[in-house]
């Protein structure tokens, strides 16, 4: 069950990198966030009420609140609706495949505890982190970069939630706080960028250089 979800997450990575519309991109990221938030429930640990409530809150934040904030910013600020990558979608997908392969390779080098034997968690986590990096590096708009950051955090979340089961409370709260605060600040800054440059195109943000 867990591995199924993780495979889904990895598939969603490809979807993220293949999507050409910003709205689709944000929604896919939201879906990925929801899937990941559901992981603790699928793990079958004894969660208790606190755990279940927390998982639900996470689901709400990652799947609904943060994407909604991003979407709102997008509706307000963005004029062009396309993702505008530096490199083509095919190349992005190929790089994502490469990254996923790399992640699987790394995952094999890391010995898992007996109870996690055979888990896809490490590979999925690293693959998602790489997908996040790819979004951050190859996408032009500030808002797509923020989404990339969201995906990166998703990847970290996978690892924390699946494997470091002992401290879910800490993991969940820090992750969530970080995500919310980070994305909020980013959106505020995006507002200012829009005000200063009338666009979210980061090509404008290259005045500071050597």
């Amino acid at each position: 069950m867990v591995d199924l979800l993780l495979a889904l997450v990895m598939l969603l990575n490809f979807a993220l990198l293949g999507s050409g519309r910003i709205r689709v991109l944000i929604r896919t990221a939201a879906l990925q966030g929801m899937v990941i938030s559901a992981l603790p429930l699928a793990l079958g640990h004894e969660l208790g009420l606190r755990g279940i409530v927390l998982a639900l809150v996470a689901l709400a934040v990652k799947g609904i609140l943060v994407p909604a904030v991003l979407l709102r910013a997008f509706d307000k600020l963005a004029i062009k609706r396309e993702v505008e990558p530096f490199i083509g979608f095919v190349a992005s997908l190929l790089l994502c495949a490469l990254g996923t392969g790399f992640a699987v390779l790394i995952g094999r080098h890391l010995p898992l505890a007996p109870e996690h034997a055979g888990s896809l968690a490490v590979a999925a986590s690293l693959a998602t982190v790489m997908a996040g990096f790819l979004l951050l590096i190859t996408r032009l708009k500030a808002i797509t970069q923020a989404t990339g950051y969201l995906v990166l955090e998703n990847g970290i979340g996978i690892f924390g939630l699946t494997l470091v089961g002992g401290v879910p409370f800490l993991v969940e709260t820090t992750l969530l706080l970080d995500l919310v605060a980070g994305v909020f600040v980013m959106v505020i800054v995006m507002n200012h960028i829009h005000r200063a440059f009338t666009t979210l195109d980061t090509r404008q943000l290259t005045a500071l250089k050597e």
Partner: protein
Amino acid sequence: MIAIALLLAAPVLAGLVAMLVRSNAKRPWVLPALGVVHVAAALAAIAGRADGHAHDPLVASLWIRLDAIGSVVLLTLSVLFLIISWYAPGYLAARSERPNRLLIVCSCLFLALASLATLSQHLGLMWAAIEGATLACAPMIYFNHNPRSIEATWKYLMVGGVGLALALLGTFFLAYAAIASGKPVELTYEALAAHGALSEPWVRVAFVLLLVGYGTKMGLAPLHTWKPDAYGEAIGFVGALLAGGMTSVAVLALARVVGLVDLLGQGEFARQALTVMGLLSMAWAAAFMIRQTDIKRMLAYSSVEHMGIIAVGLALGPVALPAVLLHLVGNAWAKSALFLSAGNIHRAFASKHIPAVSGAILRLPVSASLFLIGFLAATGTPPFSLFLSELGLFKAAAATASWWTAGIFLACLVVIFIGFSATVVAAVLGDTDAPEPEPLLGDSWRTTAAPFAGLGLVLVLGLWLPAPLKALFDEAQEDARHGRVLEAQP
């Protein structure tokens, strides 16, 4: 106990007060008051350690405790904040056109979170504190509200955010290293350290992630890219806070991680990686300091250089730890003087580029002199304390027979000095056709006393190291040595 509580509560309260004060002119005075209280609390807390409260936890699970190395960073931070806080009212009076509420509230918040980071004995808590402090800085960088500062803020957020995210993943990996070795998970240093050697690949990868993460915050090349932009566009005292405060906290985090990884059996790898990153930072900084025309970006690269020096120092192991800590203190305080005086020059000349800035000593004799002396202090000139720390690092390199490291280190220092000095001399000396600055922008005690104090402290530390501070250094070294002993026992 009260002192530690005050360390965290005072900034929060001050932030609240600042939020409530209506007057743009009066609000900055919250900062000096906070600075004094915070230094007092920090001193009390550090003194309290010696009185046997060291193991009297604030939080049951030993999450918060003031250890030796934390004390050093806390003191650095607190004194730095005091220096800067006495500069702020004078500066903000000259910048009355900008509302300063957000700036001051965020400064207070930053102080609270950074203090928390120095106190925390828990990897996750420390990470959260640093992440919070990072976010608190973003509005401060954006104080000028112009396109350049928003660009700097965006880069700061993106690069810093991604870096810290990796640090979080690294924290998780470290936790999993315990799980993979069949040990219980507890993210406090003490608990983790008690495990001894853990699963090798996990610890190594965890260290890589933490190095990249906290290295980004420190500004180790090539993760430092946000630094020149942020330091260059932020106002002087925010630059000082970032270069002296933020980086010191990041160094603390990395130092703890290095110590921990050493205990967990991967010290050798950690030291090698740190050496590479440190030397790369120094070389990178050197390359970008050659013919650098922007005095503030120059300071940013100087900061990269110093972080490189500190990384190399950490890589040399416990034997170099006192030197590293002294360097950390000296760097923070000297940087404050540099950023504040550079800020003065920037304002008076309405530019931070040479040759628009030249002959500053004719227009701003005090600030320009302080800038020049600050530069000398920052480049490790005897008798400033950074000289002693660099000497200590060389000595440690000799003790550990790290000849190549020492050689590259020396070569970088030479190139850096040549590059740095060319720009500083061009800015400070020479003739100028700039008009006399307006009275508010000229030299006054309000804008020069703080950098003067910072330099004075660095000088004093070079000539006389107070016994309590030395005791802290020694204790920190002892803590680190203790780790070596553990490593030696299978």
